[in-house]
């Protein structure tokens, strides 16, 4: 199969690389570009571990054909904060005990970020609906939901300033 050129923006940086048309976005991000923060839990869109934000929406990158990312803007966990300036979700996930094994965490945070990018006052139910596609086997979800609520408050406070 002939490889094709894929161009897209990853965490704000323009990427141009050769991919096999049968590659999925998660393969490109993890294997070709070495950003292993995005995890692969099932490969079939059933667990959300590979969630990234594509053009503002959360998607399962394991069932997005790489070629469909052409010209898209893709955000992964590596792009949303730095160790000096973490994203509020990263801070609250840490401080509210929302992280145990950490394998679902990047996808969970990306799902939550897609929500908060458009809504700084989500209800508990909206948060649950948002992360229902992200399986977490460790936490029982409660602390994750609390962390998302707390991050929304932080973001709102900094916006109001």
């Amino acid at each position, binding site marked *: 199969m002939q490889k094709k050129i894929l161009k897209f923006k990853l965490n704000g940086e323009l990427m141009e690389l050769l991919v096999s048309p049968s590659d999925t976005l998660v393969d490109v991000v993890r294997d070709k570009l070495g950003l292993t923060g995005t995890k692969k839990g099932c490969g079939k869109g059933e667990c959300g571990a590979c969630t990234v934000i594509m053009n503002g929406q959360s998607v*399962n990158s394991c069932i997005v*054909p790489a070629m*469909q990312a052409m010209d898209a803007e893709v955000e992964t966990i590596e792009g949303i904060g730095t160790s000096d300036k973490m994203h509020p979700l990263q801070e609250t996930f840490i401080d509210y005990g929302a992280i145990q094994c950490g394998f679902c965490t990047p996808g969970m945070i990306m799902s939550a970020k897609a929500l908060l990018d458009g809504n700084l006052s989500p209800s508990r139910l909206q948060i649950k609906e948002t992360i*229902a*596609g992200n399986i977490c086997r460790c936490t029982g979800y409660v602390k994750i939901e609390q962390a998302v609520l707390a991050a929304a408050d932080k973001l709102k406070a900094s916006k109001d300033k």
Partner: protein
Amino acid sequence: MDVITPQNLQEALEELAKDPCAGVLAGGTDLLVKWKSNTINPPRVFTILGLQELNFIREEEGRLCIGPLVTHQDLAESAVVQRHAPLLAKACAQVGSLQIRNRGTIGGNLVTASPAGDTIPALVVLNASVVLQSAQGERQVPLREFITGPGKTVLQPGELLTAVSFPCMEATEVGFYRKLGQRQAMAISIVNLALKATLENAVIKDISIACGSVGPTVVELKRTANRLKGHSLDTSELRNIVVNAGDETNPISDIRASEEYRRQMVGELLYEGLQSLRRQSAG
């Protein structure tokens, strides 16, 4: 699997005419999963997801026209859909997970023709029809006739589903959609059921009922609908009328539920739906 990206609908139809066996890829939530499970292995697929001309929600002469590339999440959130077909918005909100709803399209859901497809019963009670277009021309097919079996449709090689449309609901009409799954999200329906009725002082003038996951394709409960016509939603006989509604269906037993349970749930969900209509007509 090679992925080819046509630039517009015309090109897509021409390419499809040249290679009618190629797969068509929209959101990929079904095709990619099947491909990864080695269920299918098309050598070439056309990705149509970027074709903006197939991504629209329009109100036209009393009908709601929806492009096949509109995602479930867009439909669930659309004010137009919520106003003219709230039961469709509800059905779309119950699909998979947010990530799946963000990618999975209404056209994909119809062409996949899963017996459990969540939008299909809703669109059937809305009297939807689909437009099938090819390089040679286009035709309109009622949704009831579009799906012929599990995974089977009347879509011919070279044809693309390019629109879904249905009459906007009237002020006198009320609707209901309910999905029963094994869990509250990311579940395939055990049974799903859609209702649309015309009421006059809580009396059922007209009603159509469709269920999914209880037969090879969507099942319409015509006999039960006929029996319900003319009855008031306040009558104590409702339960008796609907209790055996499942007899009109032809479910199978699978890992999610038995045939028997599915049959019984048809009546239960229908009864729940009628109660909901009653509340809607009262409110």
